[in-house]
């Protein structure tokens, strides 16, 4: 029974991690511009992240190492430096985007410009990390995150043509704006397959003291949780297609356009629900990425780490998240457009994927770490596919970043 509760909590938690400003913004843009045509990208991204999260959890439960720990140990410091720097940079941008997401929600709610909210939001995030425990943060974010289900409810209430939705699940070539189409596909994949999701998950497994008895729970949480998160993303896309697209708003370039998604469905409550969803999803993600930055550095250099310790006991760990939150608030405070930053960082996330996914191929097949629980054929095929996808995305996203349907 205890396991069952833990599994359901875990599922809800992974939703909190999955849905953040990146998946909301990319799904909304894709839906507005291309209707249901890009649903396949969300599905593909979700399947990939299920595999990676399952492996990260299995690895941590069996070997008692996080993925980051093991990359340093197995590949050495010089090779570790590249994924470390790339992930720190991508996390910095994504965290900035998340802070921007909360700041926008605060602007919608109060009418005070988003720049003014960046530092208060960063401070609030920091305060929770400073005082809270891992379980508190994990579960608090999870339960509040359920509000994002309003997108699924809205999607069902709009009575979409389900056949058309199903047709969108199959990749197809765009009828117009090819570069923009592929750029959005890349951004959606980047938003779904975020490295911070699986590196955070493996740290969480250590924080929650997982062992081999958790392997079943791990599988359930990874599979159901990410599916759940993907469903909400699809919900956002459907709502964007049926509300924004149908009203002739095909280009979502401005974050002000986003709350209009839910208003025709729920009226004033639609506005409130959108603001709440955006704020909570982004706030949760900012918390997780803040922690992840500290995990990355502490695990990479072998310092003491753990969110359940008092800041006095791991000053370096706390120092890292304090500093990274402060830095991440700066671009938003300076008035950088959060939506542009989000889209940019999602494409960059996709480009950084090979650096963090290639090690999976080695680590999950290394008997000295995972023993008999090493990858089977299917998991290995999935990793190889994700690596190949990652390489293509990396090569493609940079020129698309530049042209991006300009």
């Amino acid at each position, binding site marked *: 029974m205890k396991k069952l509760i833990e599994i359901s909590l875990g599922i809800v938690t992974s939703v909190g991690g999955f849905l953040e400003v990146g998946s909301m913004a990319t799904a909304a843009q894709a839906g507005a511009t291309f209707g249901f045509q890009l649903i396949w990208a969300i599905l593909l991204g979700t399947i990939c992240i299920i595999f990676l999260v399952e492996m990260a959890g299995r690895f941590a439960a069996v070997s008692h190492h996080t993925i980051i720990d093991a990359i340093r140990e197995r590949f050495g410091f010089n090779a570790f430096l590249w994924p470390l720097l790339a992930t720190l940079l991508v996390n910095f941008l994504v965290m900035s985007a998340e802070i921007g997401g909360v700041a926008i929600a605060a602007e919608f709610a109060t009418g005070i410009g988003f720049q003014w909210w960046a530092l208060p939001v960063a401070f609030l995030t920091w305060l929770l990390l*400073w005082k809270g425990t891992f379980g508190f943060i994990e579960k608090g974010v999870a339960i509040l995150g359920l509000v994002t289900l309003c997108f699924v409810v809205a999607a069902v209430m709009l009575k979409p043509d389900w056949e058309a939705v199903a047709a969108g699940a199959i990749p197809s070539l765009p009828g117009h704006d090819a570069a923009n189409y592929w750029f959005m596909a890349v951004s959606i994949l980047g938003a779904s397959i975020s490295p911070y999701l699986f590196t955070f998950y493996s740290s969480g497994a250590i924080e929650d003291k997982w062992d081999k008895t958790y392997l079943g729970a791990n599988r359930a949480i990874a599979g159901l949780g990410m599916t759940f998160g993907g469903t909400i993303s699809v919900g956002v896309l459907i709502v964007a297609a049926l509300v924004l697209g149908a009203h002739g708003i095909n280009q979502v370039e401005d974050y002000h356009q986003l709350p209009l998604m839910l208003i025709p469905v729920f009226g004033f409550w639609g506005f409130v629900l959108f603001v709440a969803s955006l704020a909570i999803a982004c706030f949760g993600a900012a918390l997780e990425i803040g922690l992840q930055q500290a995990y990355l550095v502490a695990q990479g250099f072998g*310092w*003491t780490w753990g969110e359940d310790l008092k*800041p*006095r006991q791991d*000053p370096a760990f*706390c120092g890292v998240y304090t500093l990274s939150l402060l830095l991440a608030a700066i671009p938003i405070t300076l008035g950088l457009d959060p939506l542009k930053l989000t889209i940019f960082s999602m494409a960059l996330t996709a480009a950084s994927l090979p650096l963090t996914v290639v090690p999976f191929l080695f680590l999950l097949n290394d008997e000295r770490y995972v023993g008999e629980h090493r990858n089977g054929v299917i998991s290995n095929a999935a990793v190889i596919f994700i690596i190949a996808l990652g390489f293509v995305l990396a090569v493609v996203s940079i020129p698309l970043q530049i042209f991006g349907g300009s």
Partner: protein
Amino acid sequence: MDLLRDLLDKQVVDRNQVKIGKVDGVVAELRPGRPPRVLAIELGSITLARRLGARPGRWMAWLAKTLGGKRHAEPHHIGWNKVRDVGVDIDVDIDVRRTAIFDWQDWLRDHVIGRIPGA
């Protein structure tokens, strides 16, 4: 035992199971006519910087000396005779509080983190 695989870059924990760093380097003594003998494991940013190249190494050594004084001009050494166990982690028979390894973390705690309410 394979040095690069089983020793280098592994987690080091002290007598009280405190994580004190990774095995950033391994020092060996060259002896004429006899195989090289491992003297100590090395920890610290200077060792890491040296692995990236001679110039980063010099910069880091200068930085460490400027910030931390003479005590930090050289990487931290833990003699091989102090290494108790080489497994998932490397267990060493020292107490990190009696070394200079965590000086900077202590400084951070006393001067920054500890001064913030609620630490």
